[in-house]
């Protein structure tokens, strides 16, 4: 962290506009600028900086000067000494004024980050001899230590949104937070994009209620819309100042040149392995980023096969066993590794030592995230970061070139997040009840101080409260078994105090897919390797092989919900599917790509990619901004239709749902679809004769409500929201072990609500969430207006160059319709024939009845 401070004499020019007033926050108040008393950094701290040969950055100084502001958002590039800037006011205060109990709470999205900061913060504190106790508290902290922290909190507590939410659910929270003065939210740009952020800001409102003078600090990487984050950070409608640090020199970024051309499709980038190895050799430490865990596994495997010099290279992603990950992290910090193949698990600001090159395998999908990843290289503030983009296939060459243009133009992308989701609100009401009796009016007033919920209506709030108390069902109430009861004095409390335990166990907004642990098969339980998705495990038969942690293992069987494997692998591996974050290509990038397609030739693209686009133009055509290209062709025993809508992943997903619904109605037996930012691929048993009528916008609009009711995406959304809101309890591993007939699919709950109570709060939330995350119908209307019925239907007879990558896209949505019945009938016939059963009759066996 401290290496972020500048060596003497290397000050860049300080921009005059270092202080920007938040435009959005406090919109209903006149903008005001408050002059705060200037706090100075105590001499003991500046002296320590000097002994390190460092000077304080201007933005670090500015943060200390702003120590009394109710909320400050600092935007600084990676390596800008951002975290130190966040802690300097705390250290300065504690150095001069002794403090009893908790002084500063630090929240970060990663457990590892909390541990990392603890290490880095303790050094100056110890060397200066400040009387400051620093501890972290995450899911990994022992129960004993957690108990002790509640009774006797440290001065600085480093934690995660989930652990903080849990802390606020205890009855003794007021005592624990009694002395709290400051809260620091690190990597706030990452948190503000998810429900973890909503959860965090709700918890902050509780802390602010306990400590009205609480100061909030947000630390963010470079983003497109700082005011939106400021609005989330500040106590609404308080102002939030935004400080922007000197962004430093422009990054040195280019596309990796390889002798071999990238393939037409696929995500492995195997072709680039020799060139990547060469780069690793030329640099000290290289981070090799991948967009998915599966791709990271494959690439790591291929890298090792080609690693003749046996360079020390590690792999790090969220599905690997924790022990394995920590080993890699330690080796990295010691500087023992020349490269790490990784995913988003290394996206955030942990200090990994001397990284001097970042390689991004696969198109970056999002310019903002790319810029943040590039910042991982070279933690020295004044040196440019060096990064290379490696497209995995030829479509990605186009995406990479477009992304490079965008980075050079400083054109960051972002989508506004919208209102706070009410499932998180329901969870917070339950957390509040677990902490003790509460007043409904006061809680409503508190919710309105949270940026994301500042326009929450009373009716919306009351519906959430009713849901938490009675279930909120229209036709039958749980009068007798209410979860929350209103007492005679008007306060609400849990009916059964023991339910607080259930509530605490369900805290969180992260959706874990059901995963199974993978272990080497040994007499006494072998080495844990990591986890795979249960659905993938179900597809394995004994002898099948897959990749995990870079090795090919052979599936031997299941033992107590653990996948047992051996290293006796000699086959080509199947690919493990991991549920990782899947990035969507931003709208800006999509637009850039579409514009690029219109050029007569592509001198800025490598010849192989230019040739490929030309081939697409020959075999079919290239998508145009004012027209809609539709291709139909048979492939892999199915009939495929590809719509190049370029409307963004969510809208293309919606289009897939609507179109497949229309095809089902017309008896064309669609089996499923998959959407990317630029296209939707639908496959089925029959050919689509004429697609033009399918795109009639009125028909699509009419179909919207119908499919909203019955499709798989809605059920998936329902499951996530119902779990967060506390309608469904999280599956604990022990519950899964006890046998399956006791649990049933959340789809059944969705179907039941749809039939009997379609306007129930959970159904409203599901619709809102789907509209927000997955529907984006506005962009379909935009696409329809843009293309205005100008549809080009091409039947190339086989898969086309542009369509090929779609067949490897994850996130396929199955359709349960007529096609399923037809397949079942086929399969039943085949199975019976295979089993030698020609008649579906079991021979009678005579028995004497009792």
């Amino acid at each position, binding site marked *: 962290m401290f290496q972020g401070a500048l060596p003497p004499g290397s000050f860049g020019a300080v921009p005059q506009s270092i202080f920007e007033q938040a435009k959005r926050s406090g919109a209903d108040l006149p903008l005001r600028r408050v002059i705060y008393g200037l706090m100075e950094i105590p001499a003991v701290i500046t002296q320590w900086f000097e002994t390190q040969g460092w000077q304080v950055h201007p933005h670090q100084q500015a943060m200390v000067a702003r120590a009394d502001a109710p909320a400050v958002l600092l935007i600084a590039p990676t390596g800008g000494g951002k975290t130190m800037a966040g802690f300097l006011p705390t250290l300065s205060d504690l150095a001069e004024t002794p403090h009893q109990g908790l002084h500063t709470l630090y929240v970060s999205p990663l457990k590892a980050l909390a541990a990392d900061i603890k290490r880095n913060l303790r050094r100056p504190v110890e060397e200066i001899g400040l009387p400051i106790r620093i501890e972290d508290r995450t899911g990994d902290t022992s129960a004993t230590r957690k108990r002790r922290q509640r009774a006797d909190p440290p001065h600085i507590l480093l934690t995660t949104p989930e652990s903080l939410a849990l802390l606020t659910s205890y009855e003794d929270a007021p005592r624990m937070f009694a002395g709290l003065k400051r809260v620091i939210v690190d990597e706030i740009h990452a948190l503000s994009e998810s429900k973890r952020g909503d959860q965090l800001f709700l918890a902050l409102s509780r802390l602010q209620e306990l400590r009205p003078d609480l100061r909030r600090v947000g630390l963010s990487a470079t983003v497109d819309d700082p005011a939106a984050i400021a609005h989330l950070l500040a106590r609404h409608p308080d102002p939030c100042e935004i400080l922007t640090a000197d962004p430093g020199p422009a990054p040195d970024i280019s596309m990796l040149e390889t002798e071999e051309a990238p393939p037409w499709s696929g995500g492995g980038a195997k072709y680039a392995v020799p060139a990547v190895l060469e780069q690793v050799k030329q640099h000290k430490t290289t981070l090799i980023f991948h967009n998915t865990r599966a791709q990271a596994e494959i690439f790591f495997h291929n890298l090792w096969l080609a690693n003749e010099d046996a360079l020390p290279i590690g792999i790090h992603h969220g599905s690997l066993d924790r022990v394995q990950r920590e080993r890699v992290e330690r080796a990295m910090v010691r500087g023992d590794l020349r490269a790490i193949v990784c995913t988003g698990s290394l996206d955030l600001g942990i200090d990994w030592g001397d990284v001097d090159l970042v390689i991004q395998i696969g198109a970056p999908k999002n310019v903002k995230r790319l810029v943040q990843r590039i910042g991982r290289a070279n933690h020295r503030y004044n040196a440019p970061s060096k990064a290379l983009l490696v497209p995995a296939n030829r479509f990605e060459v186009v995406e990479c070139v477009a992304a490079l243009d965008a980075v050079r133009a400083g054109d960051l992308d972002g989508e506004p997040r919208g209102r706070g989701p009410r499932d998180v609100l329901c969870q917070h009401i339950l957390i509040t009840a677990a902490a003790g009796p509460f007043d409904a009016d006061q809680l409503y007033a508190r919710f309105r101080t949270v940026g994301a919920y500042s326009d929450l209506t009373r009716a919306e709030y009351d519906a959430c409260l009713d849901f938490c108390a009675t279930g909120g069902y229209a036709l039958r109430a749980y009068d007798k078994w209410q979860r929350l009861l209103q007492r005679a004095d008007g306060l609400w409390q849990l009916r059964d105090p023991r339910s607080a335990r259930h509530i605490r166990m369900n805290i969180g907004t992260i959706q874990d897919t*059901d995963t199974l642990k993978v272990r080497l098969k040994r007499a006494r339980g072998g080495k844990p390797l990591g986890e795979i998705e249960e659905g993938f495990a179900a597809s394995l038969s004994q002898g099948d092989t897959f990749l995990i942690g870079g090795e090919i293992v052979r599936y031997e069987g299941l033992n107590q919900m653990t996948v047992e494997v051996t290293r006796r692998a000699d086959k080509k591996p199947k690919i493990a599917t991991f549920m990782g974050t899947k990035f969507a290509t931003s709208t800006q990038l999509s637009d850039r790509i579409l514009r690029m397609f219109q050029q007569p030739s592509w001198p800025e693209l490598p010849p192989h990619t230019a040739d490929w686009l030309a081939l697409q133009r020959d075999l079919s055509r290239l998508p145009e901004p004012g027209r809609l290209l539709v291709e139909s062709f048979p492939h892999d025993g199915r009939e495929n239709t590809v719509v190049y809508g370029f409307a963004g992943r969510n809208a293309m997903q919606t289009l897939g749902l609507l179109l497949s619904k229309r095809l089902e109605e017309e008896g064309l037996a669609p089996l499923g679809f998959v959407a990317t930012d630029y296209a939707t691929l639908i496959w089925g048993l029959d050919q689509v004769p004429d697609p033009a009528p399918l795109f009639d916008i009125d028909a699509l609009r009419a179909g919207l409500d119908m499919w909203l009711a019955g499709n798989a995406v809605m059920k998936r959304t329902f499951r996530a929201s119902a779990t967060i809101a506390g309608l469904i309890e999280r599956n604990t591993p022990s519950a899964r072990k006890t046998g399956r007939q006791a649990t049933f699919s*959340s789809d059944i709950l969705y179907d039941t609500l749809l039939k009997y109570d379609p306007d129930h709060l959970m159904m409203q939330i599901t619709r809102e969430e789907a509209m927000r995350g997955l529907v984006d119908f506005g962009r379909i209307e935009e696409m329809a207006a843009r293309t205005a019925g100008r549809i080009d239907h091409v039947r190339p007879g086989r898969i086309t160059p542009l369509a090929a990558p779609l067949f490897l896209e994850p996130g396929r949505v199955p359709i349960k319709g007529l096609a399923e019945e037809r397949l*079942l009938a086929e399969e039943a016939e085949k199975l019976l024939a295979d089993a030698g059963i020609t008649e579906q009759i079991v021979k009678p066996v005579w028995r004497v009845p009792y």
Partner: protein
Amino acid sequence: MNSHSFTFSGAALTALPSGALWWAQRGLLCVSDLHLGKSERIARRGGTHLPPYETQDTLDRLAADLDATSAKTVICLGDSFDDLGAAEALPESARLQITRLQAGRRWYWIEGNHDPGPVALGGAHLAELPLGPLLFRHIAEPGSQGEISGHYHPKVHLRTRAKTVTRPAFLMDRDRLILPAYGTYTGGLASHDPVLDALFGPDALAILTGRQALAVAMPRGSSRPAASKSGA
């Protein structure tokens, strides 16, 4: 016809796509594991408030099967109620509906592990019921013949050429027949689970429920985990 007819222990039976078993010769309809009152029981025990509509939904589907078959005899094969308390706490509308369904029919409640005692509703309460060549009981017992039971909520994962399809299913061989769970809030145990695998001989069949009752060889292989979604 969407149902699947077969002969079992000398009785001509029909598996209905709903998961009910129809014995035409005797005018008898058999359903298993209704789990009425499940949402109430979960809330009573301090759990979550699931949509309290499953009892009505289950009874509506049963009414439709009774209408379609004009059954004269009904056997509920155990776990008809999620527990005895749930039977007592049934809403008035559900009691009335059960009474209406029982009118003019012989009705047997077989005891299950969830509902081991008599309930204050019409119909006879039995531990098990032999009828002609068949024996109706809740949980299958080793060495039985002509046995019809429930309890396990069997379901089947079937790999087709395009995807794996999961359905509740009847399982049977020449000695025993196990019914799928009929209740709305019920999950299932995969046919390849060792417990079910051990109960059936090599020639066992599965009859899938859904739009159409479909017979296939019972998917086996105890080395594979269930690929089910689960919740609640």
